């Protein structure tokens, strides 16, 4: 779509794209043409308002997380093929801090987090996710820990849509007891209640055998 040359002149004047001589000539035209001058004035006000109300830069929400997510994805792309959790990670389950038994029903997705206490005092909150095991290979799990917020965000990509009435329960696991006779480990919460029993499948991957009812 073409625009007339005189409109191009107005644009170039407005945007400072004219030479000094061109600008001088156009200023003379403006002085002689009140309609053009009014049009130019409105365009100028519009430009000024756009610059005022549409900042060129905005603070990115969770800016540090934004960077760390990109770095995480770059790392994933550089690691080919994607790593499968090693059986050695099984030992970490004994220190399981948090477990979301998401897949007990139709969703059939379970995620377990292995966390490592780093010298936290009793009752302290300085816990970090050390490794993640996700039985469902279609689901990708990642975490972001904010020191300032003293919080860890768990992200699960690829989950199936979850029914609105589905209850999701998290357990804070403080210890685990392994029964070698049955090759199963019982996990206990902070009040020493047994909340889940896990074992290993034929590929030495953790399997959730049972868990306490949702509370």
């Amino acid at each position: 779509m073409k625009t007339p040359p005189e409109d191009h002149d107005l644009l170039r004047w407005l945007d400072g794209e004219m030479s000094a001589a061109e600008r001088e000539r156009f200023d003379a035209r403006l002085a002689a043409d009140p309609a053009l001058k009014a049009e130019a004035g409105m365009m100028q006000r519009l430009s000024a308002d756009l610059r005022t109300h549409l900042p060129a830069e905005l603070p990115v929400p969770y800016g540090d997380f934004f960077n760390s997510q990109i770095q995480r994805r770059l790392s994933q792309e550089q690691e080919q093929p994607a790593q499968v959790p090693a059986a050695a990670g099984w030992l970490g389950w004994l220190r399981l801090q948090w477990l979301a038994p998401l897949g007990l029903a139709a969703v059939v997705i379970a995620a377990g987090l292995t966390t490592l206490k780093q010298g936290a005092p009793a009752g302290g909150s300085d816990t970090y996710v050390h490794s993640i095991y996700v039985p469902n290979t279609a689901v990708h799990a990642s975490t972001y820990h904010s020191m300032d917020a003293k919080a860890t965000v768990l992200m699960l990509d690829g989950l199936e849509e979850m029914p609105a009435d589905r209850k999701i329960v998290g357990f804070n696991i403080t210890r685990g007891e392994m029964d070698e006779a049955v090759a199963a480990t019982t996990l206990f919460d902070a009040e020493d209640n047994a909340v889940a029993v896990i074992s290993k499948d034929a590929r030495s991957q953790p399997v959730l055998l049972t868990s306490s009812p949702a509370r």
Partner: protein
Amino acid sequence: MPASTAPEPGEVPDIDLVKRCQAGDTRAFDVLVSRYKGRIYAMTYHMIQNETEAWDLSQEAFIKAWRALPSFKMDSAFYTWLYRITHNVVYDWLRKKKIQGDGEFDDSRTEHRIAAGAEAVPHGDQAPDTALKNAELGRRIQQAIAKLSPEHQQIILLREVEGLAYEEIAAAIPCSLGTVMSRLFYARKKLQELLKDCYENAA
């Protein structure tokens, strides 16, 4: 800040960071992300006006840029190149939304049915103070931008928000200088129509 602005004193120039990225240095890319994420996020947000989607799409733009970096020949400023990728990401997203027909990007948003001189919204009472008037104008501007076609959004944002010169815009889109001027002219005309009552009231 135009795309061709020199780096601040003490800042590693983009070109050096790009070379390190091309050698596989993800930390160098992290510096570029930190340097430009605010601008990329702002540009994306202005186009789709949804914080969460803008955040995700900005991420996607940076990831695509990383993948494409080996083929970046540095024949334009890094930001101009990054902007082009971002625009494509956002434009694809808008097209998919349109195809899905969820109403967030329908024909009424892209077709130019605004009659010359038509009011976009009825006249309302003036806000009692300047701050409120400014806030209202800001809201109206956001709404007007959302009603533009992606091409017109892009040209307005590149010129008015990013402050790019015509030649830089032509390189970023990419298109001819004539197309830049033509699109800019009609985009401004549409905004004028959409915001006519604001300026009539202010006159």
